[in-house]
């Protein structure tokens, strides 16, 4: 081929760089659909897909369809399963997105949403609320989730304050997070030892669950989920620039500290809200973003949106397993995310030929 022909060919098709592919989004949407359909129809009452679909359409404005379901079944669809699925979708999406955002902001594959002490802070907040008898952990506007939310955010704030004392690198922030988490965990243990009668209640809260009492929990999480989603997704490109290190990113005209602070605060807000509503659900924030990276590429413009979609599907599926496998008892969802998630991740890790970290 002559040089001219080469340049003609290239100008017709210059490489456009990595983009979110339609097929990746389509695959994840199919997974979400499968998980949602199964979650809506499976349980102590097995319902037909068609009837559930009709019932959901009936709930939309200006549409009147008779689903043929009994009153009890209608209540199960609209007041029990649908809010639970909605909460699962949001919690999975939020934790996965926050994990991906933390990994990008800290350039650290082991970062998860709990890195800056959210888990320990939320745990301490919830423990204090329970031991003081402020609430019983049931219901969205109970004192326990509110105390957990406050505890998580205070922990992040402490980590930031301490991290700046030791310098401004991502590593000093991570170390500060470790220190804050240890301190708050120690406080929590102290409080628990002094109030051993509530240990079981506290651990039930800590182990995590996607249970709802109507629409309170999903609606409580919704605003934080939306803020986290909008801010973090907008910063995908900025995180890609940050991947070359603070100094080089600065030489490309961005302010690395500012990008990191904005992304981490947005991600922490969502993660703290998710923890407050569902307790601590581990592993999702690490496994989902890494699976996406291994399957579809490392650019944050791909990893962030696909983590939202796959995280949502994964959490709904995990919750389905958690509530059906020992029915009528419920397995803590953290057990399922790790028990199913860890082997699956090992398979992806082994099969992938990508070099992502």
């Amino acid at each position, binding site marked *: 081929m002559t040089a001219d022909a080469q*340049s003609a060919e*290239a*100008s017709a098709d*210059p*490489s*456009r*760089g*990595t983009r979110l592919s339609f097929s990746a989004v389509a695959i994840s949407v199919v997974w979400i659909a499968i998980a949602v359909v199964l979650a809506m129809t499976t349980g102590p009452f097995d319902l037909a897909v068609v009837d559930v679909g009709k019932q959901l359409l009936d709930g939309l404005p200006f549409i009147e369809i008779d689903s043929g379901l009994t009153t009890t079944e209608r209540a199960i669809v609209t007041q029990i399963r649908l809010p639970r699925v909605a909460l699962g979708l949001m919690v999975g999406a939020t934790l996965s997105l926050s994990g991906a955002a933390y990994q990008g902001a800290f350039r650290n594959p082991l970062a998860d949403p709990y890195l800056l002490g959210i888990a320990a802070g939320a745990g301490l907040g919830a423990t204090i609320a329970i031991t003081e008898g402020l609430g019983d952990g049931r219901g969205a506007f109970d004192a326990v989730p509110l105390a957990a939310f406050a505890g998580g955010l205070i922990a992040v704030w402490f980590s930031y304050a301490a991290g700046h004392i030791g310098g401004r690198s991502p590593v000093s922030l991570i170390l500060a997070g470790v220190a804050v988490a240890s301190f708050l965990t120690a406080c929590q243990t102290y409080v628990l030892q002094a109030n051993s009668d509530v240990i079981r209640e506290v651990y039930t809260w800590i182990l995590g669950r996607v249970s709802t009492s109507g629409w309170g929990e999903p609606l409580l999480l919704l605003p934080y989920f939306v803020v986290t989603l909008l801010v973090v997704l*907008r*910063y995908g*490109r*900025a995180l*890609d*620039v940050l*991947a*070359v*290190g603070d*100094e*080089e990113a*600065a*030489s*490309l*005209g*961005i*302010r690395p500290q500012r*990008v990191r602070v904005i992304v981490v605060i947005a991600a922490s807000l969502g993660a703290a809200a998710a923890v407050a509503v569902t307790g601590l659900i581990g592993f999702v924030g690490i496994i989902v973003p890494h699976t996406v*990276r291994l399957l579809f*590429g*490392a*650019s944050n413009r791909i990893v962030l949106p696909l983590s939202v979609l796959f995280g949502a599907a994964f959490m709904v599926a995990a919750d389905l397993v958690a509530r059906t496998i020992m029915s009528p008892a419920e397995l803590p969802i953290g057990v399922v995310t790790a028990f199913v998630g860890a082997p699956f991740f090992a398979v992806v890790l082994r099969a992938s030929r*990508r*070099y*992502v*970290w």
Partner: protein
Amino acid sequence: MNALSLRNLRVSLGGAEVLAGVDLAVERGEWLNIIGPNGAGKTTLLRAVLGAVPYEGTVEVSGVSGRDAMERARAIAYVPQTPVIPPGVPVVDYVLLGRTPHRGLFRADSRRDLAVADDVLARLDLRGFSDREVGSLSGGERQRVVLARALVQESAILLLDEPTTALDLGHQQEVLDLVEELRRERGLTVVTTLHDLTLAARYGDRLAVLAAGELITTGPPAEVLTGQLIATHFHANVRIIDDVDGPVIVPVPGRPEEGNP
């Protein structure tokens, strides 16, 4: 006309004075090599020009009026000594990062961004690599990719910190020849730091010698590179052979004798 001028540039890091009042001007289109022993402040000087370290004194960069980082990034491109290679990123994405100062943080790559990147990839014979992951490339290929990222910034000034480190002789030559060709084609102003004195004498127009944070002298290689200067500031015992294309620095085993370099 100066592309770059430094006046009484002082930098202190961790309480130690790294640059002690440097005055230096670089003409538009010139190639200046900064040489000096380890710890002389060469890299710090480049970082001060980038605005990456706090400094006292004046740094005037042609085309930069304020402190806006994006504006500065459109005027100066920088290749660090050890670039951070992000994991799992293909060459084309990595090179397109260089368009950040032009498109901002939140816009997608424009047609022009893609065209500039494509031109640079073609010019540096990297088109065949565009989908390869940067981390999987050899040292020489990788250095070309990093250079490509700097070139798509379309800035008039190119700062290269030890661009030949970790490259074998052939690839050292390849990179420096490429920089020279690009300088002529695009009228770039080039400032590099270099450890290899013979290479520093062969490429570029002028040398600046930095030692202990002070500018010792600047000038054409044949005038600057004397046995006396190298013995004093590098503590090296060398023989200098005057070749038609410039001095060749040959190390002589054994330390220089005190008072008799």
